[in-house]
């Protein structure tokens, strides 16, 4: 196994010979499919997410802790609505939880991956870009479902949330969940291009999200937030997600608290779909594989 290389030096024995491979004679090779790779990419994303225990625990715990605090502090009956303030918080916090899993987590994670050259390395492989995004979709979908499940269990066991029994309600829940998650995820991908470095990403992403939660009626009950704030919040998906979830999980009598006096499902579908389309366009226009210093 000691062969003489073209460089005139004997090959050291510790260099193993390469085996188990043959160079294909023809160029007719099939590249792996984008969907299949996307599935594997998703599995890898989930593995990483759950191994970063701190990140995982805090991401999941944040909405749960806030729900516990707000729903325990404000728990009186809401006048004329036939519900308690705690129930309002459960519905709102599910919306906020979904947005934190999608918008906040993705916005920060992708900015850091870009800064640490993970994206550039992926771009140097034959992986189709679509697979990377599919991987993120799987990550967001699974973690979003888990987050929602945890919030529902807490809401139902501790804060008198009545889980709906009719399939129509769950169907409504499903489409609001999917549209809201998709829109917020795309918005997260887009916002990841804003921070100049991975380190600044969490500050850049968290502040707007925090403000949005206030003006979308997550932390403060919807009938207390000033109208102009709600109008501003209504431009973004969060307000509509929370409103839809109130529709799913609260009795009809609670509609009186809404700005429009009804759940407005049609408008919710319209706004969330618009965010999905607009978010996709924004991503396609602004996404960068390289960090800024790579020019």
């Amino acid at each position, binding site marked *: 196994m000691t062969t003489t290389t*073209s460089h005139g030096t004997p*090959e050291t024995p510790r260099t193993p010979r390469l085996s188990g491979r043959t160079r*294909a004679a023809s160029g007719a*090779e099939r590249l792996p499919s984008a969907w299949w790779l996307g599935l594997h990419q998703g599995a*890898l994303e989930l*593995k990483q997410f759950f*191994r970063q225990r701190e990140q995982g625990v805090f991401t999941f715990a944040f909405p749960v802790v806030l729900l516990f605090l707000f729903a325990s502090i404000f728990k009186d009956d809401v006048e004329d609505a036939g519900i308690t303030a705690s129930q309002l918080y459960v519905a709102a916090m599910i919306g906020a939880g979904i947005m934190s899993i999608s918008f906040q987590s993705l916005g920060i994670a992708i900015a850091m991956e870009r800064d640490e*050259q993970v994206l550039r390395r992926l771009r140097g492989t034959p992986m189709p870009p679509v697979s990377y995004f599919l991987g993120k979709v799987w990550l967001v979908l699974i973690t979003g479902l888990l987050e929602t499940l945890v919030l529902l269990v807490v809401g139902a066991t501790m804060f008198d949330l009545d889980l709906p029994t009719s399939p129509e309600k769950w169907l409504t829940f499903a489409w609001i969940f999917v549209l809201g998650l998709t829109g917020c995820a795309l918005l997260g991908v887009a916002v990841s291009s804003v921070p100049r470095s991975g380190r600044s990403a969490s500050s850049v992403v968290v502040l707007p999200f925090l403000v949005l939660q206030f003006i979308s009626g997550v932390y403060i009950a919807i009938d207390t937030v000033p109208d102009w704030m709600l109008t501003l919040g209504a431009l973004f998906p969060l307000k509509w997600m929370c409103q839809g979830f109130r529709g799913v999980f609260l009795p009809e009598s609670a509609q009186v608290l809404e700005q429009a006096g009804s759940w407005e499902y049609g408008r919710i579908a319209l706004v969330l779909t618009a965010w999905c389309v607009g978010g996709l366009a924004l991503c396609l226009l602004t996404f960068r594989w390289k960090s800024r210093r790579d020019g």
Partner: protein
Amino acid sequence: MTTHQPAVDVRGLCKRYGPVTAVDGIDLTVTHGEVFGILGPNGAGKSTTVEILQGHRTRDGGEVSVLGADPATADRAWRARVGIVWQDESAPAELTVRETVSHFARYYPRPRRPQDVLDLVGLQEKADSRIKALSGGQRRRLDVALGIIGDPSLLLLDEPTTGFDPAARRQFWDVIRALADEGTTVVLTTHYLQEAEALADRLAVIARGRVVAEGEPAALRREYGSEAVVEWTEPGSGPRKLRTTTPTRTVAELMSRFDGEIPGLRISRPSLEDVYLRLTGQDDGPKSEEDER
């Protein structure tokens, strides 16, 4: 793939960063199966050149063909045939070495076996460690593993051994030689002359964005290093130094003058390092007239 077409063909490559010209008309030809070194000091334009070959940087001028395609517009099939090892890398910290290498293998139509690649780069004992637990040298070996997992016909490496200790560097050289023996074309940048000499079949010396010399290492030494330096001590006036292409004649003259031993006689041929430093304008300290990006 036509065999007579070079693996890499670069004509008149230019790249500017604002007012700074990083690459100023570089020509390179790398044939299939060759190990080609791009040698130069920091800021000479090596990395910019290689990043353009990788398809990761746009160019301002010139023709570039890598494996018969323009890297700026190359497709997935092209990326599957080009392996890349960057200067600063990062890999997912929470995954194990084996998970990462196996996952990257999925991107390629006909990858090497992950276990073979781990053996080749010497990471078999670390295969089940999380990447965050690796040392700097081990991470670099992982970078190489990820660069060759797709069994590329061309491997582009940008300063692969910067920060290695001498033992790790030699081990890395063995890996490159093993790849070259199997017919992989290798283009690597380095600012270690020793590395270029140990690995490269041919090399281009780059300084201030231009190729200042190109050829086999031994030929470069012959071409640019034919002058010898004769040093002796002149009684009364002290040490003398003479650059000459005919050192024997100089010594004969001195012998007849001193009639016996010549005081402090020393004849030296320039090392490749002297040649390199002269070619890159580093022999009189750093040049100041030009911005060395």
